[in-house]
């Protein structure tokens, strides 16, 4: 007899006019790994939040192990044995790693005080499990790299020793080897009866780990099926509701006389950027690769003026380029613009309108006699919305009402409106579905073809190889290799990222044991 870990009946949820979920009914068997797929804005995160009890559905009921769930905060679901790893990181940066690990339920001593010694011991155990054994439990969570944060978030989920674990894009910033480790942990725990709900936009992961899949589209449950009963293409079609063809746009070879736009020589900054030299040409997409936290972010922020240069020089179109800050970087005739890594805290003013967000960088240029030219503003932002196919109710709606992919397009529109000479794109497709990704890739290629230089940072190797003309791999703040043409392949990128010279030590993900 099978036990239903989760039973959803007729779940519906609207945010104002947006129907995020409608009439979703789903049973999930205990001890299975169940993937939920869907484009951006399909309603996956909303479903997770309802399961967790953070969000109350407008209609319908949730039962966990045949017990009805109260939706008045995460505590009720937690009592029933449910733990969640949220899409938005839920770490408290100023608290220590161990405090974060046991944030809601620390081990207690007799009188109800937190038992600090036991907390230390137990946190060591969980950190070891997820591969954070070399992180001291007393470090502030804010000092971890993004990868480490995500791993800590996962450890936090397991530390609750749950019966049901929800993973909402928990691998979005994890490199391959950490994903492998996570899958192994999940496989082990599953054997002991853990039920897992797994959300990811990476199809390969889902194929490796999930027993069954459910596809959401526009808030509706389209189908639930055993993972391997459908082909990759079939699933993609189901997700998008249309045909998805080639993911990466074709590359044209650069003319040999394409002029250098941005040239960097001997650049050092903070202690993360060491003696970096490279040049990027007109029409080129230059990838910046490597494992997370190897100084890529700092390098790009330095070019943008957000970090002070310690040594070295940068030229733009052959002229010295030393911006005192982003304002200076975007001010010139040939602006350099950066798309920040974290769209929620660095990119968007979530409560402000879509139009105002788009126009934030361009305001100075769209004004006459010091006054804003409202007509031009409406026209230019309207153009962009059409051009990028941004799905919105109205340009005056707050940007927070958009799904992740559309939010990212709003940010891209902000850059496009300024027509920069150099685009610095930091992980522009993080947490974005296949369909939208494809649109963004095409857009980037188009920008390059029309004469821009693009610096493209991503931790996703596939993207790096598929999108870039040339790739610089960073390790410990310095460039370890420059890859181009034939040499630009997964093995070389991986090798350079780990700063290793012996290819045989690299674990090939394909050889890993995959639970079925």
């Amino acid at each position: 007899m099978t036990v239903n870990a989760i039973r959803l009946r007729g779940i519906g949820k609207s945010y104002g006019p947006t129907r995020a979920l409608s009439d979703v009914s789903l049973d999930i068997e205990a001890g299975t790994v169940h993937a939920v797929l869907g484009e951006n804005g399909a309603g996956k995160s909303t479903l997770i939040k309802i399961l967790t009890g953070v969000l109350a559905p407008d209609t319908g009921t949730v039962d966990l192990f045949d017990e009805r769930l109260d939706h008045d905060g995460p505590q009720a679901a937690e009592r029933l044995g449910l733990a969640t790893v949220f899409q938005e990181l839920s770490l408290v940066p100023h608290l220590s790693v161990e405090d974060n690990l046991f944030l809601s339920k620390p081990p207690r001593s007799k009188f109800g005080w937190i038992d600090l010694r036991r907390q230390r011991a137990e946190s060591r155990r969980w950190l070891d499990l997820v591969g954070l054994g070399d992180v001291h439990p007393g470090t502030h969570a804010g000092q971890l790299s993004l990868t480490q944060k995500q791993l800590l978030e996962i450890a936090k989920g397991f530390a609750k020793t749950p019966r049901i674990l929800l993973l909402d894009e928990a691998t979005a910033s994890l490199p391959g080897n950490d994903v492998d480790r996570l899958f192994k942990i999940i496989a082990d725990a599953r054997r002991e009866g853990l039920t897992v709900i797994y959300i990811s936009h990476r199809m390969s992961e889902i194929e490796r780990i999930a027993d069954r899949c459910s596809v959401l589209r526009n808030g509706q449950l389209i189908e639930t099926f055993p993972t391997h009963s459908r082909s990759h293409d079939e699933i993609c079609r189901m997700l998008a509701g249309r045909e998805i063809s080639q993911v990466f746009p074709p590359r044209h070879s650069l003319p040999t006389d394409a002029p250098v736009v941005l040239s960097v020589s001997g650049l050092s900054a903070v202690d993360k950027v060491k003696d970096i030299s490279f040049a990027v040409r007109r029409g080129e997409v230059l990838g910046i690769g490597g494992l997370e936290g190897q100084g890529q972010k700092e390098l790009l922020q330095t070019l943008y003026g957000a970090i002070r240069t310690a040594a070295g020089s940068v030229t733009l179109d052959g002229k010295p380029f030393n911006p005192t800050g982003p304002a200076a970087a975007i001010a010139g005739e040939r602006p350099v613009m950066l798309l920040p890594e974290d769209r929620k805290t660095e990119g968007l003013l979530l409560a402000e309108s879509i139009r105002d967000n788009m126009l934030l960088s361009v305001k100075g240029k769209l004004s006459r006699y010091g006054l804003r030219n409202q007509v031009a503003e409406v026209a230019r932002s309207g153009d962009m919305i059409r051009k990028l196919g941004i799905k919105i109710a109205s340009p005056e709606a707050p940007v927070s009402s958009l799904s992740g992919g559309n939010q990212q397009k709003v940010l891209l529109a902000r850059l496009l409106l300024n027509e920069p000479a150099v685009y610095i794109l930091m992980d522009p497709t993080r947490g974005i579905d296949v369909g939208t990704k494809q649109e963004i890739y095409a857009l980037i290629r188009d920008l390059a073809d029309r004469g821009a230089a693009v610096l493209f940072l991503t931790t996703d190797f596939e993207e790096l190889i598929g999108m870039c003309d040339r790739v610089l791999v960073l390790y410990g703040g310095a460039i370890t290799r420059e890859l181009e043409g034939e040499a630009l392949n997964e093995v070389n990128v991986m090798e350079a990222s780990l700063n290793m010279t012996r290819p045989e030590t690299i674990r090939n993900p394909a050889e890993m044991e995959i639970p079925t």
Partner: protein
Amino acid sequence: MALRVERSIWIACLFVLALTIVIGITYPATISVNYYMQQLQIAAFVGVLASGAMVVLLLGEIDLSMPWTATAAGMLACGAFSSGAAWANDGTAISAALLLGLAIGGVNAFGVAILRAPSMVWTLGVNAILLGLTVVYAGGYSPQTNASPLMRHLAVGRVFDVVPVALLIWLFVGSVLVLVLRLTPLGAWIYAMGRSSRVAYLAGVPTRVVVLFAFLWAGLCSAVGGVLLSGYSGQAFQAMGDPMLLPSIAAVVVGGTKVTGGEGRYLGTVMGVLALTLLSNVLSLMQAPEALRLIIYGSTIILMLLVSRRRSQAHH
């Protein structure tokens, strides 16, 4: 830019109406154009100062140097006018005061934007320095403190014997501010920085320029306030700005501006100024003892905020 009137503005508006009616019933003598104009004139002083406070609050900062900026500017305008110097006349005396206000705004901006000191403490320190300077100036130079005829006219004059000139000044200051906030890039940047200075910075907003403008404007408004206050009293005197700090900040907030920045409309500030001016008028007419006055003043502010907050939350 849909004209959407927030609840807090309605509440303040209703409150103003209710108070006017209560005052009218209790003191029938007050039902006169003259009385309302007098209240508007007093409101104008608070209004000008609140216009300065509002911009800084929209950035999520605060300017506590207002009281002594106003005092110092008032002292300077009066002192310069009667100094007998060749350049000193009605107009140059006021200009000197306004320049002083701008200079103080510059110092505040320097601390907040360049030195990165928290505005709450930096401007407090600047306020203390201004107090010190004024004391030295008054004690050591025994300046004249009589207001010039122009200052008198600006503060207490009436156009056609009805409309206070001070009200027109407030109107002018307010219009400039609304223009800047609604129609210039600077205005959009102010709101953006108030929401998130990190986002604004990364989007290429010239954040230092924005902070500089906000504090220059606040300093200017404080100086105008100081000139008006000394015109009103016929002279500048020590600490004359002190009683104005809380009402002007409270008025902005009661009018719906978030002290954490990024949200707020000038219409709200106008209503807030009127509401608090009338409230303190009622309390003084009631001859309420200070204890009661403080309690009523405080609880009214809480009540108004609660009513406007509660409802807007219920929308979710």
